[in-house]
């Protein structure tokens, strides 16, 4: 059986690339020109031709492992998705033919892109260097051994099928948001699992099955071995991240492109147009007075001191003398009061720093979640707005109602577009909320996200790129942890350890929160040394009082706190909620993620892994 020559190979992958990427670019261009049907036809034709080329390739290379393994699996997957989508169409009766076609074409395109990516990796990793050799073989292992490949296939299968499972009757922007949230979640989960199994599997099995005997008796340093493994996994992940990112982008934009027919309301349409596929900066309001929140705080404190000097200190005494928890509670009260508009009252919220809004951005979005402190007869909150002292009309008010009244469901997010012309030259805008209905209770906004002004600062595309980059940093760290764990643990234990790490890092916030309220513990404000000494003191105190279980709880908390302190928080570097909400995933977030996850944590794990591996005796007792 003759193997196609190198020229033929380049021709094959080149044709594939031109068809898929070219088709995609032309389709995107046509879509930008609002030629949706033409775009679909072009893309469908390109993918169809690519399918023919692929089928030819699978036949021509049927003797080669690369093709026989991967391409046949790929063809099987193609058949599976056809059957599954037809099944879904028949059972639910929901998704129309167009959705199914898009799903199938999407899977096909993603799988083809993945193949192209693999080809690219093999092209890049062809130099004669130990690290490159090990990296390349690790990639080969990933796509030729079952466990990692199954997860990769699952990812390429699940992502395009996701739109089939999103309820069609939802508002369009929610459908897009749901898609973004779930697709990011699936990508992150699949890649994390694949990374853990691959990283742990490749090192432990090489030690177990002794392939490492051969590698390490060649001029390969132990650090080079670990580096090669990591680079292999990280580059495979990079390809998968790019493929998923393109998939997410294609499906999200194609959902948004249907806004003319699929939007459920005017607000929905506007939200899709302005808010969903965007990267928006959020600005929180500040008080209009000279002194700001500090002034309000002082006013409140003086009043409290007059009423309760025992708790809050004598009027006029320095604020620094206040205990931390008292000061915190007063701050919370002030903030909550300021975010509450009593009945028949007005509060002016000033948004500042609105400079640097790109040219061409027509409007900023006021995002509010009005919450009534009392009950509302119909579940709606009503209020009026003045922007820069001018009454602001509700453009979407139904005919025959008050054109200045806003009527929003209680405790739900709404977005009101405001023209950028309302922003003055200092980059400020004043928005006054008037709680006008005489029979309505106080209206309050959550200080966290109850009222904010969002404005587009960057495109959805760049936001997605940064989000995917952060996802990659996370899986790259996982790969390093898996490798480091495998240098001294067996497959099951190393997998468990890495999974535990992953879950602890992902749920860092929740765990830290639940630990912080578990058992008595020295106060966080104390100096470190006192806190450390305080732990045994607390335990002894508890046990002396006969509260054995409480003392034990301190021990548990100590263990938990120690564990949490050793694990980075993925929650801080989670781009998914930001991306789904159309908020900016900033360069600075990406920078911080690169520093902490990419450099410090991955580096630390690499050093730990190297030190353990260097000291390890590779062979085992055979006598």
């Amino acid at each position: 059986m003759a193997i196609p020559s190198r020229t033929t190979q380049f021709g094959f992958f080149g044709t594939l690339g031109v068809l898929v990427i070219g088709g995609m670019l032309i389709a995107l261009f046509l879509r930008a020109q609002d030629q949706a049907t033409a775009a679909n036809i072009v893309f469908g034709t390109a993918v169809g031709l690519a399918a023919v080329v692929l089928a030819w390739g699978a036949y021509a290379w049927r003797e080669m492992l690369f093709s026989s393994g991967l391409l046949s699996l790929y063809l099987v997957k193609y058949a599976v998705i056809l059957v599954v989508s037809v099944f879904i169409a028949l059972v639910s009766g929901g998704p129309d033919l167009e959705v199914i076609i898009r799903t199938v074409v999407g899977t096909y395109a993603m799988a083809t892109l993945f193949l192209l990516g693999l080809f690219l990796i093999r092209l890049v990793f062809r130099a004669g260097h130990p690290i490159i050799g090990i990296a390349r073989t690790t990639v080969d292992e990933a796509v030729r051994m079952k466990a990692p490949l199954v997860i990769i296939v699952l990812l390429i299968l699940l992502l395009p099928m996701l739109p089939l499972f999103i309820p069609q009757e939802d508002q369009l922007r929610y459908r897009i948001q749901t898609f973004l949230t779930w697709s990011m979640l699936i990508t992150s989960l699949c890649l994390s699992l694949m990374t853990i199994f691959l990283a742990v599997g490749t090192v432990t099995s090489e030690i177990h099955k002794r392939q490492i005997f051969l590698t390490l008796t060649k001029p390969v340093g132990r650090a080079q071995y670990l580096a090669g493994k990591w680079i292999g996994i990280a580059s495979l992940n990079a390809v998968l991240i790019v493929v998923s990112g393109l998939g997410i982008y294609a499906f999200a934009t194609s959902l948004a492109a249907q806004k003319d027919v699929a939007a459920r309301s005017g607000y929905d349409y506007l939200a899709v147009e302005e808010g969903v596929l965007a990267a928006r900066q959020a600005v929180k309001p500040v008080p209009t007075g000279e002194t700001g929140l500090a002034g309000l705080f002082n006013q409140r404190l003086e009043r409290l001191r007059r009423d309760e000097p025992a708790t809050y200190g004598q009027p006029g005494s320095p604020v620094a003398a206040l205990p931390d928890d008292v000061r915190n509670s007063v701050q919370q009260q002030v903030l909550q009061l300021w975010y509450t508009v009593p009945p028949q009252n007005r509060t002016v919220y000033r948004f500042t720093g609105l400079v640097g809004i790109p040219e061409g951005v027509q409007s900023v979005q006021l995002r509010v979640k009005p919450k009534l402190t009392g009950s509302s007869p119909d579940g709606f909150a009503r209020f009026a707005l003045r922007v820069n002292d001018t009454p602001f009309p509700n453009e979407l008010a139904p005919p025959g109602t008050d054109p200045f009244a806003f009527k929003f469901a209680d405790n739900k997010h709404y977005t009101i577009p405001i023209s950028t012309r309302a922003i003055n030259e200092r980059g400020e805008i004043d928005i006054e909320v008037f709680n006008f209905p005489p029979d309505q209770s106080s209206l309050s906004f959550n200080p966290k996200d109850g009222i904010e002004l969002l404005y587009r600062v960057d495109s959805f595309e760049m936001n997605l790129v940064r989000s995917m980059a952060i996802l990659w940093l996370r899986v790259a760290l996982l790969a390093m942890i898996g490798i480091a764990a495998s240098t001294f643990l067996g497959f099951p234990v190393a997998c468990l350890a890495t999974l535990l790490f992953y879950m602890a890092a992902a749920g860092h916030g929740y765990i830290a929160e639940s630990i912080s309220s578990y058992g008595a513990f020295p106060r966080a404000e104390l100096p470190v040394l006192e806190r450390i000494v305080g732990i045994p003191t607390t335990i002894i105190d508890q046990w002396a009082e006969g509260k054995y279980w409480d003392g034990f709880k301190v021990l548990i908390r100590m263990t938990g706190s120690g564990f949490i302190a050793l694990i980075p928080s993925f929650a801080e570097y989670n781009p998914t909620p930001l991306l789904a909400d159309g908020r900016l995933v900033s360069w600075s977030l990406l920078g911080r993620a690169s520093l902490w996850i990419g450099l410090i944590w991955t580096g630390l794990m690499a050093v730990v892994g190297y030190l353990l591996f260097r000291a390890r005796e590779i062979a085992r007792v055979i006598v």
Partner: protein
Amino acid sequence: MARNPLDEATAAYTQEASQSTDLVVKCAGLTKVFRDFWMRNRVKAVDNIDMDIRRGEVFGLLGPNGSGKSTTIKMILGLLHPTAGRIAVFGKHPRDVGNKSLIGYLPEESYLYPFLNARETLEYYGRLFHQSGQVRRKRIDMLLEMVGLDRVARRPVGEYSKGMQRRIGIAQALINDPQLLILDEPTTGLDPIGSRQIKDLIVELKRRGKTILLCSHLLADVEDVTDRVAIMYGGKVRRAGDIDELLVEHGQATITLPAFDESDRLRIMDALDKAGLHEARIDRPRQKLEQFFLDIVAEAQAQGLATSGAGNAGRIAEFLRTDETQEVQGEDLIRELASKPVVEEAKRPQQPARPAAPQPDAGLIDQLTGNAPPSPPAQRPQEKGKAPARPNQPKPASDEDRSVIDSLLG
């Protein structure tokens, strides 16, 4: 991480060893004790052995199962760390990474990646030696042809039979044209053609001044090619030395003659009797089964019979044969001798797999049976440098080898 005091001792030792440049491997007081989880000493796998391997020699490490051969090899390779004692390989610490480019290692089993095919496997190992794509491709083509896997090079190694995997193992051990080749049970799982080829290869590499550490149970194989052997039992070296010195039987001598008829036999016996050699015995040497087998297979391959297994094992790879620095005189002859039994390429005319039997030389017999007194006990024919095997020679040695082991085993 603090340096192991043992490492420091080795460092001082390696300096000393590097001064005597003809020592490729030097072990002194080498001991390996395997401990269990509680650090209790469990097994003394290698017990205070001293061993030197000189440049350019074929050193055989023999011993029954579990005698510590593999452990010793793994310590030389840096895969295991000695409990006590010192090792220097090329005058350096056994875990020195740069040194590894001088070493080729064939482990006791073929530890290959089942998902790679033969060519990719060799590509992988070539990359580990920093070889450029061009050098890699050239060497891999030669090696694949040499081990007879060029036609199945695209099949995943996981589907190979044990012997075919072994062949890939041999190819990877040679890809860097090593100065020191460590072969751990190289002929396990190989068919006689493969085994024979390993022996040819060892001889050829030795001719080029390479050092070979051979570890095997197949004593016949070892005997054919080694210069010196060490026999291990229970982690200790029981006997070591030059193989010819160890094996020569001082009470007997062998005379090899061309075939002769019954009347000649009587004349020879008579002559010997007259010379006072009353216990002389004349036997017809039997062909060795190995040679017989090789002839049959060569015949089948010449007829072009199909096989899905390993194909014709070709000539020893060019880069392993040629000396860039010095051309040895008569190299062609040696090459021919070394590769003769396995030259079966269809393109070339079929050569006799075995040198034709020499014609009887009546003159010699006459001379012998006439008045000439028998020569003093002949020294064992020294032809290892020229041909790997001595097919027509009586072989008393293997029985003796076994009895040595038996006596060691008690």
